[in-house]
């Protein structure tokens, strides 16, 4: 392998940061979900890189679990978003404040 391990970890960190910025500055819940997917993907990249450079399969196995959990999370999250839409509310996380009351 010509590429040092920490290059992959840097890439992963930058992608994770991009996702985190997206969660902070976007208001559309669908877009926020996509940014969360970006963060999960970045973590998968770190898992796979460490797994490869330490000659282990544990990271790959964990990446599979992360993929499964994110699929479950997307299913429930999108069901909630559709429910919010059907209630006639705006697609804006600042407007979704029923839990505050």
């Amino acid at each position, binding site marked *: 392998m010509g*590429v040092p391990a920490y290059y992959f970890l840097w890439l992963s960190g930058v992608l994770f940061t991009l996702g985190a910025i997206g969660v902070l500055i976007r208001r559309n819940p669908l877009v926020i*979900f996509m940014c969360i*997917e970006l963060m999960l993907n970045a973590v998968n990249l770190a898992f796979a890189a460490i797994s490869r450079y330490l000659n282990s399969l544990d990271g*790959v196995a964990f990446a599979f679990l992360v993929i499964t959990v994110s699929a479950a999370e997307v299913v429930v999250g*999108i069901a909630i978003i559709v429910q919010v839409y059907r209630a006639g509310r705006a697609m804006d996380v600042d407007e979704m404040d029923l839990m505050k009351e």
Partner: protein
Amino acid sequence: MAVAFAVLAAWLLVTGIGVVASRRPIYNALFLVANMLGLAVVFLILNAQFLFAAQIIVYAGAVMVLFVFIIALLNPESDVTVGRSRSEWLLGGLSGAVFAALLIVLLANRDLGGRPGPFTPEVINHAGNVQSTGTALYTTFLLPVEVTSVLLLVAAVGAVYLAMRKPR
């Protein structure tokens, strides 16, 4: 290998910025598909072929189809974030830059600690990538795999319940 990594890193960064900064949700989704496909190729570089296949099938396939389908169904108008509050973009970008700088300092030029395991690429490819990964998943990680299968079941039931409920 280094050239391939550089190209893929640039691709991932550009599409990642596209995911965060695009105005219309459908463009966000398409950028995310491009990002996930690029990441799948990075998995290929890292000798995780099974993860590559799962990434394309589950993420770029199933999850993104769900996103695009919902966007087509709900047709949300373009995000009103831009122009509403510049300071939020500034604060978000600033905290992100600080976070990235911390991460990069933390990871700067440092080798991974820890003892290397027995699964070199030669060993994995000799046994077969799917075989080695499957063995790891169904022996060492049997309990987490079972727990995530229960989680998937609960998520499916929860989604059906939420879809059946009448909104107030």
